[in-house]
Structures are given as C-alpha cells and as structure tokens.
C-alpha cells in the first residue's frame, strides 16, 4: 500500500511532465495536430491518481500526513549552526535567558550537536490540503485541455500550447505537493514562467509580449518579498522543511568532534510546519514573526494578484482564453491562497499579520469590484472579478480561525469551478465572434449560442452568490467566519473590561492562539467589523457587474461584429462538454460539500481540518458545522438586490444607464465662476443700480477690485472641481484607478531615469577617471622630458646623486662608511 501511494504521489506530477517532454520532442514534426493526445491522456491519469489520493486521505483519521522523499537536490552540511553560535528558535525559547553568552556558544560551534544541514530533498507530501488542491488542479486542467482541443484548433503553435499546458500542470501539482520552502519557491517561479510563456503565446502581438513581461516582473517584486521571507524563516527556524526530519548523523563531524555526540542520532529537527513544532507551539511572534508574515504575504500578493501587485492579471488576458481560465482564474493565481493557508501556524503566531492579510483581501475585493463595473472587455471584467474573489479568499484566511480558513479554501474550490466556467464561456463567445471581446460590439447572443448562454448563466448565478449554487455557500461561509470573528473579539473585549472576576472562563479565550492585548482586541474588532460591511458591499457590486456582463453579452438586440464573418455559431462539442461539466460542478458543488443546511455537517471543512498544520495551529473549531441563517439571508438579499439593480439598468431602457454614467462622471459640474457669469450678474437691475451708484461716488475702482477678487477666488475654487471632473467616480473606475499610470510614473520611469544617469556616469565619470589615470604616465613623460638637456655633466651628476640615494636606501652602514671615507679624503685634500 505504501509503495502504491508513493508511486501515485510521484505519478501525479510525473505524467504531465512526461507528456510535456514527449510533445516538445515529437510535436513539431510528428504529432502536430495530434499533440493534445499525450497531454490529455496524462491529465486523465493524473486526475484519477489525485482522486485516489484524496479518497485515501478521506478515509484516514484527522491529522494524517504522509511524506515521501525521492532524491537530494542540494546539501550543504552544517550550514546553520555549524559556524554560528546562535541556536535555532527551539533552543532559544527553551534556554533560560542569560545562561549562554555569545562567547560560550561561539566556542561550542562547529561541533555543536545542534548543527543543521541546509538540505533540500525532493520530498512530496500528502495531506488533506494537498489532496484537495491536487484533485481540483488536475480536474480543471483536464477539462480545460479538452476544451483547448477545439479552441486552439488550427493554431500554428498547437504543439507548443499543449507542451506549456502540461508543463504548467506539472509545476502546479508539484507546488502543492512539495514539503519544503525552497522547492515551493522553485515551483512558484516555474508556474510563473509557464504563465509568462502562455501570456506571450502569440508573441507577434506586441501587447501579448509586453503583458507577459509585465506579469513576470510584477511577480518578481512579489518574489522579492517571498525570498526575503524564506531567508528569514531560515535564519529564524534553521530549517526550510515543512516536515520533521531526523537530525543529520555525520561520520565526518563525529570523527573530528568528540564521539560523545554520536549517541544523539534519534534527535529530530522540527520542521517549520512539522507536527513536533506545532505540538510545542514554538513559533516566533513579535517583530520577526510579523516580518515573516508580511514578506510571505507580499509574495502571495504577487502571485494571487492582490492590491499593490494586482496590475498584471488584467493584462494577462492577452493570452489564449483557455489559459486565462486555467492559470489566471482557477489554479495558478490561487497559489498565494494555498501558501498562506499552508503557513497558517506562522500567521497564527502574528495576529497583526493576519489582520493585514484580511485587510488587503477586503480592500482588493472592493477595488476590483469597482473597476469591474465599468469595463467593456468581457475577459477583463472576469479578470477583475477573479481579483475580487481572491480578495474574498484572503479575507477568509485573514480571520485566522479554522472556520475562516476552511471557508477561504472552500471558496477557492467553488471559484475554480464557476470562474473556469465563465472564462471558457467567454472563450466560446470569442471563438464565435471572430476574437472580438468588446461587449459594445456584440449583444443578444442567447439565441445564437444557447448552450453557452445557459452555462454562462449558471456561472453568473454562482459568482453572484444566488442561493443554491456553489458561490453562495462559500461566500456565505466567509462572511459568517468574519462575523464570528467580530463577535469573539467583542466578547473577549467585554470580558476583559469586566475582568474583575479572576476565574475567567478559558473557553472564551479562543479569540486567537496568541494572547492579544486589549489594544489589539479593540483594533481587531473594529477592523473586522469594517471588513464585514465592505465584504457585503462588494457582494452587491459583484452581482451588479456579473449581470451587467451577462445582459450586455446575451440580451438586448442581436448584434454580431463583422469579424465573425457571418459564421457566428455555437461552439463544437469538444468545447461545450467541458462547459456542461463545469456548470454541473458550479451548480451542485456547494450543496454537496457543505451540508450544514440540512444535517449540520460540512464534509469539506471536516476534511480540510484534518490537515496537520491546521488542526494543531488554529484555535477554535466550534463554528465548523454551524449554518447561520441570518448571515445567509443578508448575503442572499444583497446578491438579489444587485441582480435587480443590474436588471433595472440593463434590461430596460438603456438611457437610464447613460444618465447614471453622466451623473457618476460629474457632467455639468463646470466651474460656476467666470467673467461671463459675472457680467450677466452685473446686468441684474439691483446690481446695476448699486454699480452705478458706486461709479457716481467715484468708488468704481473698488467695484473692479471686488470683481477681480471674486474671479480669483473662483479660479482657485475651480481647481479641485476640475480635478474632480477629471477623476470622477466613473473615470476612476474606467481608468482602473490609474494605478498602471501611477506605477509607470512613480516606479518605472524614475528607475529608467536612474539607469540612464548611471550609464552616463559610467561612460564619463568612472571611465573618465580611469582614462585620466591612464594618461598620467604620458603627462609625467612630458614633464620629465625637460630634464633631457643633453649635457653630459648633468647626466653624470644625476647618476652620482642617484647612486648615492640608492646606497642610502640600501645600506645605512655602507653609507656611513662611505661618508667617513669621503670625509677623510676631503680632509686629506684640505690638509694637502
């Protein structure tokens, strides 16, 4: 059984890799239009293997984890404490302060039994979290691959496309199954490269090439943070493995050091997320803990397109649509969510870090939803919607409770289904419309492509969170967990304020794993309440933009662009079947995975809670199976209101929309001041009389001064007005809050300027100094040339002086002796 499991675990990523190599080798010459066969076959195999693994995990008791090591990637023996006296955090925490001085530890170093290797093994793990991710990734990939057979049919780079897809599935499955931060980073980058290659798949399009580069670079900024976080974990914990590893038993060290150390072979190096560390709770909080969390979060923000680094995802829509569905909606962008969920114990140790996660998620959700309201590019609306939904997931994770984390992961799974469905539907529309994606150019397609329409409708309902569809359950779970968090925090706060009774009930201490200060409690309660409200507003906006998109595309008068060439049709079966399957999943996944509404169980959350790093690390488990009817009702109400709003705007008279846009664009806010208006005012009878009276009193100049003053005031006042006019709510949303422009102006261009400056500096200053030094000998030569007089006597004198100087330098004794001789000779001469 063990052997079979090990083989299955390696088979899940190995099959797509083999397919990628095969297609890359044979694709261009032999396979050509059949290039999809190896890939689809491999994905079927992977998907089945993943399902078997998931089923296996399902049957195991809670806390199951399985680690299998395949080979050693890199090994630097004694890297951590071999030379350092600082012991890892485990010993630091346990050592009573003041017993070890640096000098002592420095002497101990080298032969210290705490010496740690930097060892990176190719180790795969299996637990509930990994099993769920594997099943989701391979299942969606399989469907998207089948869809792509139809979508990419006849493309010049057909084999290239399937190679990249297979490579991506390999990297993504490895990313979720590795058990080491270095390898996590390795595959984190690898999926990034697949994304880069697939965004720039049609590399002749300048926009596609630029978008690929932008995605890579923005992700690199995130990776900068991620790398720093990993380094900090290394310096703090002295290991980068998730799992516990046996401490190194080394002959070479034992040979040089005292053989006494050999008896400690059973010692275990606790992994960062290993069961031993979770059990003892040896996690660093405070400044270091917060720094680790924030740096990891920066990495997650890059990959999962969260607020400061979200700008690459909309541009990534330049890639083929199946890629957008698979990589930029369902799987790769959730890597950040997976990573934060995986590192839950690290985040639990730092409540402030959790708060930041939740805050960034909420803010991103709102921001992206606001932008999605006004976009006309169907795929971009979906891209912003993805960013917004990922924000929800981060909000769930940021609550730091088990309910919140399982809600976030639940949303990840349901979102994968309905967002992949929506993207593939958009691809189907694009396929029929001759690659036109601007919603202003087509409309009323529900008769032309009925199956696409119905599946798209299901996707929209799920995304909006309408009752029985999957999006409703997961979104509701997130809202409920945030609400529960607020309640717990407030409860705790009240308890603290009335903390006169000393025997406070410890059951209420579940506000978090770490004891929170009153300040943190108050701030947390306030912040989570704000987030709850924001999340509700976002839910409303979500259903507005979702149904706007649906109505613009499928309702109204039938319009088909010229690019479609009169061949607008329903897509072929290969493309429709994946849509139908995904629609089925999007419709029922929520009801199947969350049964709390009728029997109070939540199979998904129960399974996920079995992940070792979640069971041990997170405090409360009480909210798991509870179904909050009040919150469900509120969120459903909000969603329905959004749908109603969109229907009122887009199904009826379109002039309403235009009027609304005019209002939001602040039309008619022209500056009220101005000479013309003033002149008109001067013609008013009363004013004119007053004016004439002033003129008669020879005070006309006062009047003129007054007018000029008023004009000046109006001018000053009109500046913010003009600014408002320029940055009206509508324009802010349509212009994506001008973040791209802001980054361009504040980051990219200044850096280019500095680069240019450095380059000029290098050519003229740094190299100039070198050249000046190089010319120095020549200049010296011209100076020395003047000494070449041609007088033999001068040369003789110079020679003698030089010789003397040399003597002085070489031998002091000789000089004194020669001096004595010379003096004697001189004296003799004088005497003579």
């Amino acid at each position, binding site marked *: 059984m063990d052997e079979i499991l090990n083989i299955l675990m390696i088979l899940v990523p190995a099959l797509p890799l083999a397919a990628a190599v095969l297609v890359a080798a044979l694709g261009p010459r032999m396979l050509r239009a059949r290039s999809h066969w190896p890939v689809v076959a491999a994905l079927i195999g992977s998907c089945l293997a993943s399902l078997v693994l998931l089923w296996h995990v399902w049957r195991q008791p809670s806390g199951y984890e399985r680690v299998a090591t395949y080979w050693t990637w890199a090994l630097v023996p004694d890297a951590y404490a071999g030379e350092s*006296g600082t012991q890892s955090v485990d010993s*630091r925490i346990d050592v009573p302060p003041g017993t070890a001085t640096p000098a002592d530890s420095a002497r101990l170093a080298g032969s210290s039994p705490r010496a740690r290797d930097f060892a990176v093994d190719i180790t795969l793990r299996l637990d509930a979290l990994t099993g769920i991710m594997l099943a989701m990734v391979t299942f969606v990939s399989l469907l998207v691959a089948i869809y792509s057979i139809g979508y990419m049919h006849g493309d010049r780079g057909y084999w290239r496309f399937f190679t990249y897809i297979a490579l991506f599935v390999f990297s993504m499955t490895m990313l979720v199954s590795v058990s080491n931060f270095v390898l996590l980073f390795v595959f984190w980058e690898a999926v990034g490269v697949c994304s880069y290659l697939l965004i720039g798949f049609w590399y002749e399009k*300048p926009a596609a090439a630029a978008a690929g580069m932008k995605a890579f670079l923005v992700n690199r900024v995130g990776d*900068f943070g991620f*790398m720093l976080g990993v380094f*900090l974990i290394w310096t703090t914990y002295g290991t980068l493995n998730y799992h516990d590893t046996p401490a190194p038993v080394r002959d070479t060290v034992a040979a040089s050091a005292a053989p006494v150390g050999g008896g400690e072979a059973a010692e275990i190096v606790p992994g960062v997320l290993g069961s031993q560390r979770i059990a003892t709770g040896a996690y660093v909080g405070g400044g270091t803990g917060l720094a680790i969390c924030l740096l990891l979060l920066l990495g997650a923000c890059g990959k999962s397109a969260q607020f400061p680094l979200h700008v690459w995802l909309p541009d990534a829509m330049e890639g083929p649509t199946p890629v957008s569905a698979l990589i930029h909606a369902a799987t790769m962008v959730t890597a950040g969510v997976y990573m934060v969920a995986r590192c839950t114990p690290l985040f639990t140790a730092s409540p402030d870090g959790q708060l930041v996660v939740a805050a960034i998620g909420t803010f991103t959700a709102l921001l992206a939803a606001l932008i999605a309201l006004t976009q006309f590019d169907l795929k971009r609306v979906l891209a912003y919607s993805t960013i917004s939904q990922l924000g929800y997931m981060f909000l769930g994770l940021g609550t730091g409770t088990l309910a919140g984390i399982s809600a976030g992961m639940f949303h990840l799974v349901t979102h994968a289904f309905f967002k992949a469905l929506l993207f593939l539907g958009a691809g189907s529309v694009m396929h029929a419309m001759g690659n036109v994606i601007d919603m202003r150019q087509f409309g009323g397609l529900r008769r032309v492509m009925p199956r696409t329409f119905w599946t798209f409708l299901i996707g929209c309902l799920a995304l909006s969170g309408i009752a029985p569809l999957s999006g409703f359950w997961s979104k509701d779970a997130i809202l409920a967990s945030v609400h529960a968090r607020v309640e717990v925090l407030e409860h705790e706060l009240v308890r603290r304020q009335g903390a006169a009774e000393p025997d406070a009930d410890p059951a209420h201490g579940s506000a978090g*794993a770490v004891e929170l200060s009153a300040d943190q409690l108050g701030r947390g309660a306030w912040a989570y309440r704000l987030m709850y409200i924001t999340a509700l507003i976002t839910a409303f906006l979500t259903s507005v933009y979702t149904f706007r998109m649906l109505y613009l595309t499928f309702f109204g008068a039938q319009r088909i662009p010229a690019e479609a060439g009169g061949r607008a049709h329903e897509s072929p079966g290969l493309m429709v079947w994946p849509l139908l399957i995904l629609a089925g999943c999007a419709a029922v996944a929520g009801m199947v995975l969350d049964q709390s509404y009728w029997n109070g169980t939540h199979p998904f959350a129960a399974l996920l809670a079995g992940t070792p790093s979640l069971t041990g690390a997170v405090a409360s488990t009480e909210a798991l199976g509870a179904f909050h009817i009040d919150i469900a009702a509120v969120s459903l109400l909000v969603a329905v209101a959004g749908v109603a709003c969109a229907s009122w705007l887009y199904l009826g008279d379109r002039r309403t929309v235009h009027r609304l846009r005019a209002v939001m664009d602040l039309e008619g806010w022209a500056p009220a001041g101005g000479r013309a208006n003033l002149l008109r005012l001067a013609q008013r009878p009363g004013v004119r009389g007053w004016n004439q009276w002033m003129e008669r009193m020879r005070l006309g100049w006062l009047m003129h001064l007054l007018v000029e003053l008023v004009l000046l005031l109006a001018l000053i006042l009109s500046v913010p007005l003009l600014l408002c006019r320029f940055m009206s709510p509508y324009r802010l949303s349509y212009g994506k809050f001008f973040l791209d422009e802001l980054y361009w102006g504040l980051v990219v261009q200044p850096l*280019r300027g500095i680069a240019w400056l450095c380059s000029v500096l290098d050519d003229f200053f740094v190299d100039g100094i070198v050249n000046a030094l190089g010319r120095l000998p020549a200049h010296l030569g011209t100076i020395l040339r003047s000494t070449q007089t041609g007088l033999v006597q001068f040369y003789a004198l110079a020679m003698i002086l030089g010789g003397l100087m040399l003597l002085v330098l070489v031998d002091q004794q000789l000089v004194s002796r020669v001096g004595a001789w010379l003096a004697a000779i001189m004296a003799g001469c004088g005497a003579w």
Partner: protein
Amino acid sequence: MTTGHLLVSTILVPLVGAGLLCGLSRLGRSVVRRTALGVTLVTFTLTCVLVARFPADGVVGDGFGVTTWAWFGAEAPWNIRLSVGLDGLGLWLFALSSLLMCTAVLVSWESIDRDEPLFYAMLLLLEAGCLGVFAARDIILFYICFEFTLIPLFFLIGIWGSEQRQYAARKFFVYTLAGSLLTFLSLLAVVFWVAQHTGRLTFSIPELTASLRTHPLQPVSWQLAVFAGLFAGFAIKVPLFPLHTWLPLAHVQAPTAGSVFLAGILLKIGTYGFVRFNMAMLPDATAMCMPVMLWLAVAGILYGALVALAQRDMKRLIAYSSVSHLGYCMLGLFALNRLGMQGGTLQMINHGISTGALFGLIGMLYDRYHTREIRQLGGLARRLPWLACFMLVFTLSSIGLPGLNGFPGEFLVLLGMFQRAWGDAPVVESGQLHVISVLAVSGVVLGAWYMLWLVQRVFFGPLREPRAAAAHPITDLKRHELAALAPLAALVVWIGMHPAFFLQRMAPTLDGVTAVTQESLRNRAGSVARMPGAPEPDVAQVVRQEGSTRVR
C-alpha cells in the same frame, strides 16, 4: 595513465595544438578549424576523465593529480617548481575552461575569415593559460599563466575585433597588467614573509597556505597592505564595481569567441584568486575588509543591473549584466560562510555557462544581421525559432529561474548573505549587513527586467530586421552553432536539477577556507566586544525582545 600524467597532458594538448596550427598554416580553412576543434575536443575528453576520477565526496587531501617537476631554480635557495594539481575549487573552473573553448571554436566557425591558423592558435594558447592558472600549485607558475592569458586575448581583440579594436585591446591590456603587477609584488611579499619565519623559501601555494595558518602575517596592517595589493589585480579581473570600465569595451570589440571566453573564464580568475589567496592566506584582513567588499559587491549588483537597463547594444547589455552577476559571486564568497562560499563558487560556473552562451548567441545574431543594436531588431522568434528558444533558456538561466542553473547559485549566495547578517554568531556590523542583504535581493528584480526586456524587444513583437539583411537569406541555427549551444543548455538543466553533484565535489576545499576566515571573524568580533563602550551582544536578550511567544 596516472591522474597526474592525465592532468599534465590536458594542459599540454592545447599548447601542442597551437604549435601544430602554426605549422599547418598553409593548409585550407576547413583543415585548420577542424584541427582546432579536434584539439579542444581531446582536451575536453581528458577533462571529463579527470572529473569522473575526482572523488565524489570532494575530499582530496593534499590535492588531486598532483605532479611536480623541477624547474629553473629548483634547488634549495629558490624552490620554484613546476607543480600542478586540482582541488574542489579549481576542478570546475578547469572543466569549464575546456568546455567553453569548444564553444569558442564552434562560434568562430564561419565568422572568422582571415588568418585562421593564427586565430585558433591564439585561442588554444589562451586555453592552455587558463588551464594552467586553475591547476597551478606554485606561485611563479600561477603568475606566469595569469599574465600569459593576457597576451593571446590582446591579439584576439586587437586583430580580429570590431572598429575600435586597438583602443580596446590596449586599454584591456594596460588596465589588467597594472593591477596584476601589484598582485605579483604582494604574492612575493607573502612568500618572503613565510621564508623569514620558517627559514625556508617556498613558492608552493599549499605549503604557503598551511604555514600562514600557523604563522599568520603580522601585524594586521601588513596583512591589509598585502590584501590591497592582491585586491588590485583580482578586483580588476573580476571586475569589481568601480574598476569595471574596461569590460564593456573589451567585450563589445572582441570577436565572439573572445567574448565567450573572456566572460566565461577570464573573469573567474579574479574570483578564484580572491578565494585562493586573499581568503585562504590573509584571513584576518579578509575578516576586516568583509563589509567593504560586500558593499562593493552589492554596488556592482545594482549598478551593473541599472546600467545594463539603459544599454542599446546587446553586447554591452550582457557585459554589464556580467558586472552584476559577478557581484553576486563576490557577495557569496565574502559572506564567509559555507552557504555563501559554495553558492558563490557555483555562481562562477553558472555565470560562465549562461553568459558565455549569451555572448555566443549574440555573435550568431551579429553574423546574420551585422548589427548589435537592439532597436534595429524585433520579432526574430518567427524568423529564427531555435535561436530564440536557446536565447530564452539562457536568459531564464541568467535571471535565476528555479530548475535551471542560475537558481541554486543565486539562492545559496543570498541565503549565505542572510545568514551572515542575521544568523551567524560573530555579529559584526550587522546593521550594514542587513541593508546589504536586502539590497542584494532587490537586484533579482532588476536582473529580470533588463534580460526580459532584451528578449521581448529582439525576439517578440512584429518582425523588424535591418534593411541590409534582405540581401542574403537568414537561416536558423546551423549544425555547428547547435553543437556549440546544446551542451551548454544540457549543463544548465543538469546543474539546475542536481546541484548536489557539483556542490559535493567542491565542498571540502571550500570548507577549509571558510573555517579559517570564520576563526578570524570570531577573533575580530571578540576584539570588538572587548573594546570599551561596545555593547555586549546578548543573544538571549535579543530573543526576549523579539517577543517569542508560545502558542497555547
């Protein structure tokens, strides 16, 4: 055949080959270049045998394949010997030299069209010189080979270079020679210091290192002076930040083969010298200079990357990227711990492979379009798909993509630097080191920027070619070009997938150096701590302040 004989014959084969080529000069072009390729392949095969025989755990004791012959002045007073041998540090650079020379010959296959016999003879002489540098165990032999590498390269640039070739050749020669003279004086100073203390003059590098371990150069000011002298030669070779201006010029003007070998091997002589002499022989000075060297390294990383970003000439861009990458090497080496040292050495090899290949690729583009201007080219992926594919692989390798070779080196370097700043016990200048390590990581973003920009401009987007190119057909990679690039690409993947193979063999040698410098660093930290007014660093205190918490 014993390993020693094998090693000597590996070094001698190119020398003999060079002589043979001069004799063959009457014969046609194809004979000459085939002979040259044959000689390099023989050398490479011999090297492969050497690598295969090298112990897998890297423990070589006194050296691997040590061979010593008497030379001039081998008698008692001088003891200058012709002694060669390999260890974990020299092995991979030695192997890389013989590999890259095959590449260099192959990229010159069609682009060199005059005085071929002389050209290939120069290349082979250059190879012999580099092999000698990395195998030398005697200071005089080392220095002779060290200087000898300049002469063939001087002629390669000066005769077969581009428009400004003579200026470039002169500048390169004078600049590096000026530095290396100081290096020679410093090496002699070390030799005489040891002679004074042991009463026996020796030029043997292992003997000198061993006796300096027991009798370090005193006082420290002397060590610093000698360090500075060695620094002059090696830092110019590396090139370290403000001393780099000869590099872009030499690269741009050199023929492709010259650029490949210059970037791949000659720069590594500088870093090799730092490890072999500065660190191993002058540990106290190394410990004292560590922050300065780290600052120079990180300045090189960022400055090189920024200047590369502003370049319009592909070769200049890659040349400045070399400055940046060599900054990583130096950063790793001067982190003075195992991780950094091994990462830095691995990074030397990685840089040799990927930058060598990038220069080769740009040479191939130049052969086709006769321009290196980025703005004159565009969308070439459509016209030259295989060339574009290789370009992408080596670009990704150069920006440190995991799975390819750049990553393990870069990651170990940065990890080592972090450990120096945050983890290691002798806490010296930790504030500065924190800044340095964070700045160094930010270089990763800039590095990706200029390389991807280059690829995007030249290979993606709509097709753009210079008008002159229309005259003759543009073809994708030819067989000899493929042969030049494919082994390098394979190596890129191999190192990326299994760096342990390379790290294992270099580890024991490097650990020896690390141990010495660690000791000095500890002494230095001790002396700082004893100084009045210096706050006593208390690890436990620091941990308490960090507020370590227990979960539940």
